[in-house]
């Protein structure tokens, strides 16, 4: 590994990571928090970011990658400005999430795990979002959309 090529984490990222380190007994214990912090600032965790975080936490980049790839919401590939999380668990499935999935694909021209060419949206499935009384549901960025119908999608994704 060529150390000179590793970008330094920003002061802000470092200070946020160090705040987590203050209450864990060893540095690698903050691995998930650190990756979430960097992802919040950069959208995803690139190989370069991963190496920088690993160095800061005194662990190997491979070990950190093993952790990163375990968790569904740590992104190791670039994602769009907003991530669409469409629930496909049982109640949402009964209430027609497959149809909604096709409509989103039709509207945005992307299938699951794809990003729009303008980098606005990445489309992912998600396990039960814990709003089953309002099924079908999805999140777009930080917002939860409940009782979805195909017409609602048209409003949400009006270009």
């Amino acid at each position: 590994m060529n150390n000179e090529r590793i970008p330094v984490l920003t002061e802000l990222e470092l200070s946020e990571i160090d705040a987590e380190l203050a209450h864990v007994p060893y540095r690698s214990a903050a691995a998930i928090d650190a990756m979430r912090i960097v992802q919040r600032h950069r959208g995803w965790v690139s190989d370069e970011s991963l190496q920088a975080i690993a160095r800061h936490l005194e662990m190997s980049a491979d070990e950190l990658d093993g952790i990163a790839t375990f968790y569904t919401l740590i992104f190791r590939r670039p994602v769009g400005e907003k991530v669409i999380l469409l629930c496909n668990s049982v109640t949402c499935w009964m209430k027609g999430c497959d149809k909604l999935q096709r409509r989103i694909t039709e509207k945005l021209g992307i299938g699951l795990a794809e990003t729009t060419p303008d980098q606005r949206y990445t489309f992912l499935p998600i396990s039960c979002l814990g709003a089953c009384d309002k099924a079908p549901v999805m999140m777009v960025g930080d917002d939860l959309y409940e009782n979805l119908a195909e017409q609602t999608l048209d409003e949400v994704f009006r270009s």
Partner: protein
Amino acid sequence: MTVQLPLTRNIHADRRPTDLQAYEQNGGYQALRKAIPGMPPADCLQTVVDSHLRGRGGAGFPTGMKWSFVPMGENASPGHKYLICNADEMEPGAFKDRLLLECDPHQLVEGMILAAYTLQADIAYIFIRPEYLLATERLNQAIADCHRKGYLGKNILGSDFSLDLYVHVSAGRYICGEETALISALEGKRANPRAKPPFPQVSGLWGRPTIVNNVETLCNIPHIIEHGAQWFIGLGVSEDAGTKLYGVSGRVRNPGCWELPMGTPIREILEHRAGGMEDGYALRGLLPGGGSTDFLVPEHLDLPMDYSAIGKAGSRMGTGTIIILDDRTCPVAFVKNLIDFFAQESCGFCTPCRDGLPWSGQVLEDIENGRGRPEDLETLERQVSFIGAIGNTHCALAPGAMEPLQSALHYFREDFEKHIDDGRCPYGEPH
């Protein structure tokens, strides 16, 4: 008159949050003021034991007994003890903890302070799924307000008890809700469950004594401490104590979540609260407590929703959030959706789970798509007995996954056979 529905007394129909001032005006933090300095930790523990409170996360283990395994006093080695609130609600069909977290964060925080005081734990975490953004924001606000008020931090209410409480936002995966997997995740590792023993009460987070409790479980603690064990037992209308947040989702007129006396009959929840089935749909079956519980059928509607009665009927009350299977939804596809979920969410450590669940999913897919063979039913039965056996895997994910499958094979066998005989699914896509 004392409170009959304590958990939701601060929860409003518009779901606005109850802040510190409103919480205190409605009697909040009185339980904490009663315990500190009035009740030594051993008295608090005895009260929780006597209340017969059972874990609301799904397993129903007696909370007081779980707590009693934590080494106390002279038996405790020097160092930290931890309390963790499991707010990683991700069981398909479960949406009850979200209500408690978003609408009354102080109830949980007070419950955690009291639990930590009882266990003499000095550090506590709320482990929350990343999608619960509103809940995270409101919890952080509640914690900040408590620090200002002296309910958290050093020397709480002037006592020698101190507690730090942190919100840990997870990064996804259902398995994190399993208590030993949650501990692994909180340690910054892959969320692989651990073999027990040692139990977390003795060796949990960073090898220290640790208690993991569900949100709803901890929300009961202030009320039990304030009103006493006998009051709590008196709230239930069957064998189990307290109240319960019950939920219903699927093709009912009014899906939702309600606090009712523990042991309320299923029929009352479905008909009086959820408003009965939607027009044009009939009840075929139901999962009483989330995606990892066995089906019940209409003949079970008059059973009380409690741990014992649902257990005797061959299922589990689980989270108490009911999922309805209607007569226009294919039972094979319904179970396939659940098995696919569990296969995807397996941590991959134990072979029966990692390799067995995708195999079950493949067999179900073949049946659903008209490629099923008569011998497939035997294969599924064999998978149920091997994958479903407790002890073949570190945790209960795979056995839980087999519960809806085994009961579907029992109650809806003719549906499986018809798929195989006709070479097609007789139902259309859900709409």
